[in-house]
């Protein structure tokens, strides 16, 4: 629905090379901006430091996913083999000492739940899926997945200023600086 009202998302600036983007990102970081991001068609090595971002929290969640898988397997196997349906086959008794036979399934379920946590954790942390985004309003932004390198500083950043931010982006080497607006 188009209400005709536009809301400013922020400024988008284009950079020629990965190196230029990397150096500009460090300057944006030093200026104290918080609500901004650098866009490229491939992950740039060292960009996390240039943007002042720490290590991803994903492994923390995956650890618990893996642990959940392991405990599921333990519960499933001991529950069914020792309590619900004890059978002595292959001369293996229905008790704790049969644990070596249960290792393969423990391993597989640990890996399976870790992988699911990795997938959904990654999506949650990077706030995906999100099919619409103000940046898609920009024509030149289509190049972000091709050969473009961009920095976008959002209007909700406290340091954002309509004139000064534009000048700042031009000063650090950005070209085609564009005010991206969102249709409400």
């Amino acid at each position, binding site marked *: 629905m188009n209400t005709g009202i536009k809301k400013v998302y922020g400024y988008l600036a284009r950079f020629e*090379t*990965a*190196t230029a*983007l990397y*150096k500009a*990102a460090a300057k944006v970081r030093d200026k104290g901006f918080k609500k901004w*991001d*650098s*866009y*490229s*068609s*491939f*992950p*740039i*090595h*060292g*960009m*996390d430091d240039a943007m002042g971002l720490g*290590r*991803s929290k*994903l*492994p923390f969640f*995956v650890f618990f996913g893996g642990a959940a898988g392991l405990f599921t397997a333990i519960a*499933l196997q001991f529950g*069914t*083999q020792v309590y*619900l*349906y004890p059978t002595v*086959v*292959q001369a*293996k008794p229905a008790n704790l000492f*049969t644990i070596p*036979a249960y290792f*393969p*399934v423990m*391993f*597989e*379920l640990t*890996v*399976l739940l870790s*992988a*699911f946590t*990795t*997938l959904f*954790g*990654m999506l949650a*942390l*990077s706030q*995906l899926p*999100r*099919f*619409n985004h103000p*940046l898609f309003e920009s024509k030149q932004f*289509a*190049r*972000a*997945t*091709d*050969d473009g390198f961009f920095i*976008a500083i959002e209007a909700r950043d406290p340091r954002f200023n309509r004139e000064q931010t534009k000048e700042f982006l031009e000063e650090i080497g950005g070209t085609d600086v564009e005010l991206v607006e969102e249709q409400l």
Partner: protein
Amino acid sequence: MASEATTTQPAAADVKRPKLEVLEREELILNNRSLAWITDRICGIVENRMPLLWWLIFIPSALVAMIGVGGGLTYLVSTGVGVWGNNNSLMWGWPIVNFVFWIGIGHAGTLISAILFLTRQNWRTSINRAAEAMTIFAVCCAGIFPAFHVGRVWMAWFLAPIPNANAIWQNFKSPLLWDVFAVSTYFTVSLIFWYIGMVPDLASIRDRAKNKIRKFAYGVLSLGWRGGNRQWRHYEMAYLLLAALSTPLVLSVHTIVSFDFATSVVPGWHTTIFPPYFVAGAIFGGFAMVLTLMIPVRKLFGLEDLITMKHIDNMAKIIAFTGCLVGYAYLMELFIAWYGQNKFEWAAFAKRTGLGEDDAPYAWAYYCMMTCNVLAPQFFWVKWCRQNLWVVMGVAMLVNIGMWFERFVIIVTTLARMWLPGDWQYYHPSPVDIMTFVGTIGMFLALFMLFLRFLPCINIAEVKWTLLSSNVHRDELEHAKEEAGAQSFEAGGQAIGKKQG
């Protein structure tokens, strides 16, 4: 990637400053291709019409799949498993041969995407996507056989630990149940790995799309990916974690498949060498299949700058290496059967190989396997053979055949000569057996063709990442080298001066 070549002496000595030697990184992408060229070439495959050859492969494969898998299995289900060639002694027969064959094919994909990622072998980026696709399709083909081999396929849900009216639970001490978990986990994790890897590339296709349907379809598939570094950092971590999870997983899958055999008390199967031997064989056969598919693909779509002769050379070397491992396993198995002084074990091998034994009905299969798997890869010691695509293709085909025969030898020759002479039989595949197996080959090829048609067949983002120009410190490095009076060398020892990234 880390080059193994050692430093070379500078050619020119008549310089004042001491020239430092710098070994340049070998370029993985030829002809200084730009980022836009890479996107355009790979997305172009999806956007343009398919060449005639694509149709010539796709239509027959799809027909073969429909008749073979669709028709063969419909006949099987409506009649009974008796239409397969399996009998009382050879209860496994072709279906399990085909299952192990297909599941083995898949391993190269995960090896390339996970193990070569962890060991920082950047040449993997050009081939990992197609190899992962191959993994998934091969596991699909593999899954058909055990599912229908249970006899009453509508009861296959009994494989899953679900509470049922009989209050019966699965036997978790059985390798066959481990196999259910291993194969289904492997399929799921491979699918997740493949899909996560593809999201940024699907976004590339979305952003280039001209028509609405394509924009919508790839828009949904790419989940709204924008390529911001706040996304990339989680993405890269997810990729690393999945690689770390898939590495032991891929080794476990064929290990557990080998447990199906090794934990039995059948002479010829009951050996500790089986897990590493199966894993080496799986990687060996998988790489052969990657080469079989990728050599025509790079020609067909003009991807020679992305999948270079270096990639083919590396894969040929891996085939030579794993071929030697497999050869070692064959010979060690034979040696231990003789040296171990277990007369049943030796009898099994004598009947398998025909060594000092007249009753060896399958010796032809054994020597076929030996020729294809052990002798054929030895060509790859010679550089000329690794550079000649016809030779590479020929050897890869022989390895594909040889790996099928390996599973045939292990399963059929052993079961045909088990403990009781009264059980000894000769196995003949039935027409339905042949139809189903040929059908899975058609299904595999048809799925791979659809993959080429609809999905980016090379990992665009990762290929861009391996370009020399993608290193943000490259100009500083070049500057520092110039300051120090360094001279650059290629791996061959040729002075090259400053390279353009």
